[in-house]
């Protein structure tokens, strides 16, 4: 079930009413059932995988608590099980294909469809076991609450990846109906829906056309496609995250913000510290810092950064394009860290805006690998970019995919508008806290824009595939 669908709206209203109407003891089971129903709209059979993850990690936690002597073994077993599930469903075919191509083996492929959001809930579940292992969180003895921690539908399929300290205690606190929460949550949902339906999904037609066969387009059009994809993925994922935070807010449960104006960052390091915050927090906490972080000299730090970004690339998908994407991000961050001490540190707005533009351009070019289905597609895009044809963007080819100049101008206006709003108010929960007429008009404007210009063709959120 997609957040941007009518079924979800109905589902959400029913669950919300039940949440505040049912007796206290029935709320947690109801939320588990609701989350299962939500997940069943994708592939029902894959619920089994979710329950395997839940059972393995629940009993690992209990075991770690009960048998401290074996806690390391239990942690390893839990991590291996989670990564094993991830490997089978996400990476097995990739490794077999690579082996068949490079070594001439003839191993068969599994050809299974990737369970939606698998990387998200396995990482969240692993986070619990690691925290229990380190003694930072007491074992959760109630399997219901633990199941809800993994299954909680607002963040089940695309995060934010929450640690147990943030989420589990909130499930246990008193329910408290608040119009304030409902209004704040609804406004966040609106804002997320605007980014998804009005900007991301509209841009996607253009981006899809460019990446399908870049050789057919002018350099300027391909360049615009490359820039647009960065905007698209930002609006798609941050739009989803805003909606997830908003939906959860209506229940009175706070989720962390996953984005903090990343595309307005003035260097790549800043950008990744503000993009998909919960994932980078996970990598930092469980990989970067245990490996020594930046405390063991510049060489170890460089290796750690490269490793984290390589894993991050692989986390996003099983393909060389994702690995290259992760590797390039790591390399550019390292380059930035190495030359940063020699850069002029001026607070002049021109320097700042130049930094933002340079960072955006760099990240957009790296994202070419992320968007391309294979390396040939990426090569075609770069070939077009490196051989300028000199023709201007508005040269007519856009009509091929119903992209008139007016449409392009509309999108650009929306993008500029979005950045202007987010530049002022971010993270998004600081948004719309007032009840002024200006805000009410703004919300009405958003509803009208979504209603009249939103694309509702049941397009999946990009990050669902991870």
């Amino acid at each position: 079930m997609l957040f941007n669908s009518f079924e979800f709206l109905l589902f959400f209203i029913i669950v919300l009413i039940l949440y505040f109407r049912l007796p206290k003891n029935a709320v947690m089971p109801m939320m588990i059932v609701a989350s299962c129903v939500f997940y069943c709209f994708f592939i029902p059979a894959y619920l089994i995988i979710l329950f395997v993850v839940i059972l393995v990690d629940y009993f690992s936690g209990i075991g770690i608590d009960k048998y401290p002597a074996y806690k390391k073994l239990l942690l390893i077993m839990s991590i291996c099980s989670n990564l094993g599930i991830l490997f089978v469903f996400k990476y097995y075919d990739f490794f077999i294909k690579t082996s068949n191509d490079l070594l001439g083996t003839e191993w068969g492929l599994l050809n299974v469809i990737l369970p939606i959001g698998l990387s998200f809930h396995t990482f969240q579940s692993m986070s619990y076991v690691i925290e229990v292992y380190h003694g930072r969180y007491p074992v959760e003895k109630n399997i219901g609450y633990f199941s809800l921690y993994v299954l909680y539908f607002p963040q089940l399929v695309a995060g934010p990846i929450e640690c147990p300290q943030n989420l589990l205690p909130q499930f246990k606190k008193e329910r408290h109906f608040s119009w304030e929460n409902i209004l704040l949550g609804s406004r966040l949902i609106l804002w997320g829906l605007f980014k998804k339906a009005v900007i991301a999904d509209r841009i996607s037609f253009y981006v899809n056309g460019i990446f399908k066969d870049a050789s057919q387009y002018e350099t300027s059009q391909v360049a615009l496609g490359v820039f647009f994809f960065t905007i698209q993925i930002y609006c798609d994922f941050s739009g989803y995250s805003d909606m997830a935070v908003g939906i959860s807010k209506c229940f009175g449960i706070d989720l962390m913000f996953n984005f903090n104006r990343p595309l307005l960052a003035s260097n790549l390091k800043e950008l990744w510290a503000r993009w998909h915050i919960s994932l980078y927090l996970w990598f930092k906490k469980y990989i970067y810092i245990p490996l020594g972080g930046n405390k063991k000299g510049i060489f170890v730090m460089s290796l750690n950064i490269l490793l984290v970004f390589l894993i991050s690339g692989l986390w996003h998908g099983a393909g060389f394009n994702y690995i290259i994407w992760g590797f390039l991000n790591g390399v550019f961050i390292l380059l930035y860290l190495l030359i940063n001490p020699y850069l002029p540190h001026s607070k002049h707005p021109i320097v700042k805006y130049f930094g933002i533009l340079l960072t955006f351009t760099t990240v957009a070019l790296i994202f070419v690998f992320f968007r391309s289905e294979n390396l040939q597609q990426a090569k075609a895009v770069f070939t077009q970019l490196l051989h300028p044809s000199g023709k201007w963007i508005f040269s007519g080819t856009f009509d091929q995919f119903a992209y008139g100049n007016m449409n392009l101008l509309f999108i650009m206006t929306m993008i500029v508008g979005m950045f202007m709003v987010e530049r002022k108010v971010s993270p998004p929960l600081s948004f719309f806290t007032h009840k002024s007429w200006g805000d009410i008009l703004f919300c009405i404007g958003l509803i009208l824009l979504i209603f009249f210009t939103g694309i509702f063709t049941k397009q999946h959120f990009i990050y669902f595939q991870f």
Partner: protein
Amino acid sequence: MSTSVVLVIILSIVFNKGYRKLYQPTYNTLHMVFDDTISYNTLLIGNSKVAFGLNPLYIDSIAQLNAINLGYAAANLPTYDLLLSAYLNKHQAPRFLVMGIENNLFFTDEDHCNKLPLYDYLYREDVATYFEHLKLSYRLQRWIPSTKFMYMDDYSRFGILNAFRGKSLFQQADIYHYKGFYISKNDQKGLQFVPVRKVDTFTQLNQKALEHFEHIVSICTKHHITLLLCFPPMPHQVASITQTPLNLIVEKYLQKQQTFHPFHVLHNDTNRTFAPAYFVDGSHLTYDGSIKYSILIAEYLRHLNTTNEGLK
């Protein structure tokens, strides 16, 4: 005689129950410190300006940390010391300690603190020592808990009075609560003007308060905790008149301490003052003000977290 004793006991039990409800956030803080075993990598310790001012949600998201607000309304330096030491007994050391401080904390040790909730924890050695160190009576309260109300201070009286007048924050229906941070979102109109503040009458630093402060700093050094001291934000008008002798004494003291122990200080200078509309009174923030303050501290922590200074 026996009837009146029974009546007094029953009344005191009822009264204590009401009191616990009234001061629920403070009791929650004490529960998180003394009983819980959940560890966080960032502690926000302070008085009401921290408890109702710093939302861990923003700290977590912006600074990529896992913070908990252990703010205790009407707390002083000995109380901060007690909370930190007790937390470290049962939890892992955090990477960051954000401590809300104010000038007057350095000039007094026993005033300006609501001690009543702590009497309920007298069975703990460290709490008993805390009272003993402050030369406060505690033996009677240990055996007859309701006698603690005989030792009500101004803060407790003020809180109870407000509760009877229906003005208490914690009696209002729409309370926002997240990881120890509490605030009422309703009926929070910002100030149109800033009330004149009472002039502090302190003249010299309190030795006991300094001992506790230095103990906190030494704990941080021992456990490799990055300490960030934050003066609370003030309305513009108040900030412009804060260069008092009191400020200079505290600043001089902190600078001296910084030569022995590395810690960070965030002053409420002109860059960190807010418009009066962000305050419910002369020093406490509205819901919007708390977001602004939380983002400000989170941005600073993010800077520390991404440099060598903050990484453990």
